[in-house]
């Protein structure tokens, strides 16, 4: 059995770890609330935009001419992997890296063999993770989370959309964690480009889309063409916000588990400590008693 002093230092060290993890859990909980608020703030905008897009495109039919439309060939593909800058959040980051490399090996294996896949990494963990797997990262954005706002995010989205419009890429895929609730994150890969108006005009907004006959200015066609990039930027922004909320959710869960584990460990160590203490006292008494007996004898 380990000696008393060893166990005592062990307990002290586990206790300080437990303090750190429980503090991190609390910080994450506060940040999660903020991240969730940002998603809620964005919702009315996104919903209205979808509603207008739906009512306009249902009048026009689905084959609207636009530069983000589907192409016949898929020559070059871009994958955007969205992770966080910090670790200690369970499988949050490694899942994104894993899915990205999976996509390279399966869906885009043809393009990957011809070196026709570019990867953009958002977040430090994506850069590190992909590099260690031997994936070449063509561009990375690391300081996006320091001051997260719509304009900086939409700049990135715009740059990607411009590259699609000029024909540099034929498909753009997002890999990120979708926020479900504080305990659950869904890893998704979502097609960003080419744009699918049908799927954007989802059934929910179809129902709410009013039957009023609107005047359109300048024309329906032009309105759709100007809404599509706006809606794409919103989609990209939503992916980032989702990922941020999911990150804090994941870290909260991970830190909660760590705190629980530390509590359990401390309980076991204390039990061992007390056993050792009792054993040493028993030993001492035995020695005294046997010593006294020897004196008598």
């Amino acid at each position, binding site marked *: 059995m380990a000696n008393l002093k060893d166990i005592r230092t062990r307990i002290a060290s586990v206790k300080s770890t437990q303090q750190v993890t429980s503090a991190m859990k609390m910080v994450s909980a506060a940040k999660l609330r903020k991240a969730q608020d*940002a998603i809620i*703030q*964005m919702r*009315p*905008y*996104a919903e*209205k*935009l979808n509603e*207008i897009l739906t*009512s*306009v495109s249902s009048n026009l039919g689905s084959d609207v001419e636009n530069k983000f439309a589907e192409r016949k060939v898929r020559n070059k593909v871009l994958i955007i992997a969205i992770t966080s800058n910090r670790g200690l959040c369970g499988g949050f980051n490694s899942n994104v890296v894993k899915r990205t490399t999976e996509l390279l090996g399966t869906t885009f294996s043809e393009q990957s063999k011809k070196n026709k896949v570019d990867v953009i990494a958002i977040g430090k963990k994506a850069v590190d993770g992909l590099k260690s797997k031997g994936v070449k990262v063509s561009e990375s954005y690391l300081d996006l989370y320091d001051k997260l*706002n*719509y*304009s900086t995010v*939409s700049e990135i989205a715009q740059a990607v959309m411009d590259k699609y419009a000029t024909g540099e890429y034929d498909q753009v895929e997002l890999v990120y964690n979708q926020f479900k609730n504080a305990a659950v994150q869904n890893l998704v890969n979502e097609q960003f480009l080419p744009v699918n108006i049908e799927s954007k005009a989802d059934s929910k907004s179809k129902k709410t889309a*009013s039957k*009023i*006959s*609107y*005047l*359109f*200015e*300048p024309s329906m066609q*032009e*309105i759709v063409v*100007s*809404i599509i990039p*706006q809606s794409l930027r*919103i989609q990209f*922004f939503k992916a980032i916000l989702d990922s941020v909320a999911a990150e804090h959710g994941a870290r909260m869960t991970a830190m909660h588990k760590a705190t629980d584990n530390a509590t359990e460990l401390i309980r076991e160590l204390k039990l061992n400590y007390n056993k050792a203490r009792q054993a040493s006292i028993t030993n001492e008494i035995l020695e005294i008693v046997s010593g006294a007996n020897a004196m008598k004898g």
Partner: protein
Amino acid sequence: MLHLEIITSEKLLFDGEIKLIKLPGVSGSFEIMTNHAPIISTLMEGKIKVKEITDVVSYFEVKGGLVEVSNNKVKVLVEE
């Protein structure tokens, strides 16, 4: 009387009753007053002028956006 909401992707900029709103439309600046016909229009870079029910006038700078008017409700989606 008109009800106006100006929404960005990050927050609600304005919510209240107004007398008139002047918008930088793509095909020229235009105003909306009570009982305007339902319209959907896109906006370009410029200033939105809002005259509230209390005659207070306020301005909002926008980079672009979208406006929907129906049933005396104005919803402006703007990009800042």
